[in-house]
């Protein structure tokens, strides 16, 4: 099967709609809904804009916002990272796995094929990152403080993303899993704008506002004595 999927037997390909099954259509519709609702969140944020500051600034905003996304996030500076290094690195791996799985989902519509070695490598990586996600989930269930902070959304979000990575790994190696893959992806896409997964949008706004706040007051980026 040429130019039509990740595996040699072929994945869905938009240039060849004859091959689309019901689960492809469901995932396509879910993607549309997800993008539309995410856009609503995004437009609302952009329309509201940044707060008006009347105080005379003591620093520069843009370098502070840059620092907010870079240096301030590093384990050397962020206590939530350096006091919790295993969780921090598990979280990073988990997010990398999510980005890869999303990328593969989008690429699946383009007809790209991958060599067997790469498919294996990506599958192993995704299994490892989903293991990190499972670890974070287990921690949430076992630690009293985290459990009392958590609500069903926290568990559902983690389970959906972890399974998404797992099933992406499986489908890279075994194309019979397509229906499950697309159904699970659809569930994830539909859930995204409703629960905490939407922090994928708000994270950027939060780091922006934090950089703006500390930049205006001359706190960030750190000044030399």
């Amino acid at each position, binding site marked *: 099967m040429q130019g039509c999927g990740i595996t040699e037997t072929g994945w869905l390909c938009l240039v060849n709609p004859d091959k689309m099954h019901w689960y492809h259509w469901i995932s396509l519709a879910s993607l549309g809904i997800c993008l539309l609702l995410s856009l609503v969140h995004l437009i609302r944020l952009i329309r509201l804009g940044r707060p008006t500051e009347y*105080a005379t600034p003591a620093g520069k905003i843009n370098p502070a916002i840059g620092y907010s996304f870079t240096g301030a996030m590093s384990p050397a500076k962020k*206590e939530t990272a350096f006091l919790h290094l295993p*969780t921090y690195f598990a979280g990073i791996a988990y997010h990398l796995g999510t980005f890869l799985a999303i990328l593969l989902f989008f690429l699946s519509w383009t007809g790209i094929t991958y060599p067997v070695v790469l498919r294996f490598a990506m599958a192993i990586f995704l299994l490892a990152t989903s293991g990190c996600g499972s670890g974070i989930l287990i921690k949430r269930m076992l630690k009293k403080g985290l459990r009392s902070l958590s609500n069903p959304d926290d568990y559902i979000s983690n389970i959906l993303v972890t399974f998404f990575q797992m099933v992406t790994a499986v489908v890279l190696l075994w194309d019979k899993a397509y229906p499950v893959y697309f159904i699970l992806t659809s569930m994830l896409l539909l859930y995204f704008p409703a629960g905490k997964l939407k922090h994928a949008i708000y994270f950027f706004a939060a780091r922006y506002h934090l950089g703006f706040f*500390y930049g205006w007051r001359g706190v960030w980026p750190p000044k030399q004595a």
Partner: protein
Amino acid sequence: MATKTSLTETGMEVLTNGQITKGLEVFEQPAGSKLLTHLNSCVHCGLCAESCIYYLTTGDDRFTPARKVDIVSSVYRRYRTFTGKNLPWLVNARELNRATTDEMVDLLFGACTMCGRCTMHCSIGVDIAYLVRTGRTMLSNMGMVPATLQSTVNAAVESGNNMSIPTDEFVATLQWMEEELIDEVADPNARIPVNETGARILYTLNPREPKFFPLSISAMAKIFFAAGESWSLSTKMYDVTNYAYFSGNPSEARLIAERLRRETGDLKAKTLVLAECGHGSRAFRWEAPNYLQEHFPFEVKTSVELIAEYIRDGKIRLDPEKIKDVVTLHDPCNLVRNGGIIHEQRYILKHFVPDFVEMTPSGTDNYCCGGGGGQLAMSEYNDRRMKIAEVKAEQIRKTRAKIVVTPCHNCVDQLSQINITFKLGVKIVTLAEIVADALILENEKK
């Protein structure tokens, strides 16, 4: 302010519809997308727990910053999001009822100094202290500010200063301090000018100074004298504090800020210098322009910046042999982490203190002393306030310092109590006091 509530059949107080409506108005405040962003950003990772002195000293999960974020955003979710309105159990969206507000009062007023340490370290970037303030505003709208804190605000609103010091008493204290100054600098022309129009600087005070620590007024007057500064105090409005910032009442905060802004204009001062008060500096330097929605036509700076300037410009000289003890520095959260005054106080101290030791951590990472956020005014939380002070006591002990300097009168108050409670045996002073001690004056009495 008394709150009108009704009772259920079981005798439990319930919130009125009016109170609920007023409380929810907080989500409509014009803050660009800032409020919306922070209300939607927390991922419940729980990693911020160790950044907060309340959790560190008690190990109580209720006191983690995340729980403070959650109680505010859970109400937001219940009334302002599709999921929270339709599936509240899914996202723990909470009704705004008596149980919720009781918990909010305990967590947001009674278990947070609004120090912002957690904000700086949050894994996402949630401005936790800002959400705590938002929650306090919600409670303030509903008439639920703790009476102790509210009475401090009321004193400032009604009398012009938070300790209700009568003007004649204030004037008498200034006259007494002027005599002290004349004596100390051995110059009959030394003065503490009052209500002078056209002086370059209008200086402010924390009312604790005239009330309990008048020598800190003469210390700053001595620095002004040495620098040959043109300055004045106002008897009409000198209070640098603004406890309405802590109570979360923007209209009262606006009223207090407006008085100081107007007085600076009336006396035609070019620069308003904010006395050593962390929250006062923050409230006027950073928040007041927003409360009043105007760019001030005069310069606003802290006394810390001014003293550093005097040294840099050679206007004052300090004796490097005067202070022989080990000195450490406590960074007030609102001045440093939330105000950007980080290096000036270090520049000053390193200029004349031979044995200066930093606390660990320090600067923007420093731990709150425990007296911020209006805690010193809320006596009902005194035990908790001294419990969270364990962190600061340990930090001080580890420096082996004999003198703790802090550019904040509220911090001085809390640190003095820490000093007694934890038997630290240190001396707590403001920056102006230690600088005034080391000033080199031509005529000074030996």
